[in-house]
């Protein structure tokens, strides 16, 4: 009964006209950035973060969450029609989606990705509703040592799953932690690495760093190459898949959903990896694996369902433990804190309207997306035809204004430009920015837990291995660190990129 009451409360919050409006704005913007290559959900959310300062926290979070799962929907459109993934989670969709479009089956491909996303999104929200509150109740028993171990494990998993050699990802994580040390020391109130710059006394802002690393550096890379793309000219018809197509896709959708959801919950997992894994699994269990890559509908249904299910799953660690699972969630954590809400075990109890409202709005958002996406595909295609040379100054301008209006500070704009350059160099040398961002957010939290834990144990690090939950988490982290060093397993590390 209590569950039903809570769910009802959520829908009451989500269905108020204001929140409905913000939900709509969020998913619309999300789909838009999903469609536009070179502007991912991370950059878009940091862009729009300043605009949410004037509204109440519930509406703000609802809108930001909408951007995230909206982008997952939008990304598939470009993958299918242009063979350019709008964002990383839709890379695999290109393989079969674009081939389907070439065969004149763009309609069913777009249709099944929208329906699959809808089914997956809905199921994962149900999962979120059931798992998050009990997990939060359990997390109330966590002390500083458990939190520290959990964050260590989160970072390790992320670096383990990152593409390229593991030392690169670990280096990025260490650099992120170091950046997280800047600003005022929480325990002694002394300033560290601030160089007498007022803006740095609170630490490096997350938004300038993220905008620079993900937004500006992406544009810098894009203008280096020739900027023509061809939108595949085809009549998009039969958006509603027929019975045969449904029969072929329903299995992949369900499997993709379950897989995506659980990979989403894992720290460092998330939408990108789950879409790759879902595709690989479908190919392996399929009766006709050789047809994958030539335009089979299963190859669209599975990854598109998985990446949407992962978005629901990714909210679980954030809402119940207060620990972000990926860079997008890290940004959302930043948004929570700016609005004076501390996500974590107490969130469900202290701010039930925020928790259940956000969850219910995600459901509403999924309906809006389904209604929005199918009829509006024509509009998205038109937007794709706006030439990039005209588009990119606008993206840059939005970054500049968004960053400036955060604190009305030119210094932060300069920090953003600096991180644009850093991100550009990282991308050139194939360093991933995601571990850096997660570490930057976790850094101060980790440092606090570490020092509190060490105070509890009078300075002995054994405390992390004495308490059972903490010991398991630490053990997993250490295992993941050593695992790639064992020669027998060296080839087996999954090579999926963020």
């Amino acid at each position, binding site marked *: 009964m209590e569950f039903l009451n809570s769910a009802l409360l959520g829908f009451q919050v989500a269905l108020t006209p204001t929140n409905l409006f913000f939900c709509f704005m969020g998913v619309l913007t999300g789909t838009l950035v999903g469609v536009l290559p070179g502007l991912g959900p991370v950059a878009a959310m940091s862009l729009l973060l*300043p*605009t949410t300062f*004037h509204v109440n926290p519930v509406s703000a979070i609802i809108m930001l969450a909408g951007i995230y799962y909206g982008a997952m929907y939008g990304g598939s459109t470009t993958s299918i029609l242009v063979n350019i993934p709008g964002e990383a989670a839709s890379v695999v969709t290109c393989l079969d989606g674009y081939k389907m479009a070439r065969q004149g089956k763009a309609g069913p491909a777009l249709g099944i990705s929208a329906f699959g996303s809808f089914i997956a999104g809905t199921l994962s929200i149900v999962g979120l509703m059931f798992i998050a509150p009990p997990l939060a109740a359990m997390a109330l028993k966590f002390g500083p040592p458990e939190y520290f171990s959990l964050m260590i494990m989160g970072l390790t998993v992320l670096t383990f799953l990152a593409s390229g*050699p593991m*030392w*690169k990802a*670990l*280096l990025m994580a*260490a*650099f992120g*932690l*170091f950046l997280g*040390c800047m600003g005022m020391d929480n325990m002694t109130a002394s300033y*560290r*690495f601030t160089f007498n710059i007022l803006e740095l006394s609170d630490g490096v802002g997350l938004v300038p760093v993220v905008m620079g690393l993900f937004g*500006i550096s992406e*544009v*810098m*890379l894009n*203008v*280096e*190459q020739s*900027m023509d793309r061809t939108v595949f000219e085809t009549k998009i018809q039969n958006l509603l898949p027929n019975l045969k197509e449904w029969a072929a896709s329903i299995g992949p959708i369900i499997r993709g959903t379950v897989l995506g959801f659980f990979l989403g919950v894992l720290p460092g997992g998330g939408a990108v990896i789950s879409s790759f894994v879902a595709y690989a699994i479908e190919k392996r269990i399929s009766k006709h694996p050789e047809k994958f890559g030539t335009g089979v509908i299963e190859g669209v249904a599975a990854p598109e369902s998985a990446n949407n299910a992962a978005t629901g799953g990714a909210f679980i660690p954030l809402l119940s433990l207060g620990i972000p699972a990926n860079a997008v969630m890290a940004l959302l954590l930043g948004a929570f804190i700016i609005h004076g809400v501390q996500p974590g075990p107490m969130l469900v109890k202290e701010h039930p309207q925020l928790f259940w409202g956000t969850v219910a709005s995600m459901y509403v958002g999924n309906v809006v997306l389904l209604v929005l996406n199918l009829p509006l595909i024509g509009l998205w295609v038109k937007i794709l035809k706006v030439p990039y*040379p*005209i588009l*990119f*100054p*606008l993206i*840059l*301008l*939005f970054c*500049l*204004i968004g960053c*400036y*209006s955060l604190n*009305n500070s*030119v210094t932060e*704009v*300069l920090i953003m*430009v600096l991180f*644009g*350059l850093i991100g*550009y160099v990282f991308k*050139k*040398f194939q360093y991933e920015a995601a571990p850096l961002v997660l570490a930057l957010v976790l*850094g101060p939290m980790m*440092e606090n837990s*570490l*020092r509190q834990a060490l105070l509890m144990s009078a300075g002995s690090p054994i405390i992390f291995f004495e308490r059972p939950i903490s010991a398991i988490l630490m053990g997993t982290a250490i295992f993941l660190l050593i695992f790639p060093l064992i020669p027998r397993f060296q080839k087996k590390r999954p090579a999926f990129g963020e």
Partner: protein
Amino acid sequence: MPFLTGAAICFFSGAGLIHATLRRRQGEGWTSPLQGVRWKNALVILISMLAYALLMAPLGFFLTTTLFIAFLLRAITPQRWSVVAACSILTAVASYLIFEVWLQAQLPKGPWGI
């Protein structure tokens, strides 16, 4: 904590160095990441953004934005002057309306009050 993270950065950089040396021993060459791309475009973007940040306060939001958009439209892939003029002024007006009027962000004012 700063010490630990610093030590970790050194450690993993060392790992990177060893890794790279090993790969070179195996005969892998190094190709410049700037090869075959128009990296000057990226540099132009970076400098124009720096200029935007520094000129915003003395010149005001409106003029800086117009100049910024116009410059980028001409510099990277030259557009027709009519397109440049229309796009830059339209963008400046639209972003002014959205951010200053609707969202009430405090954008810097130039000598002409906008």
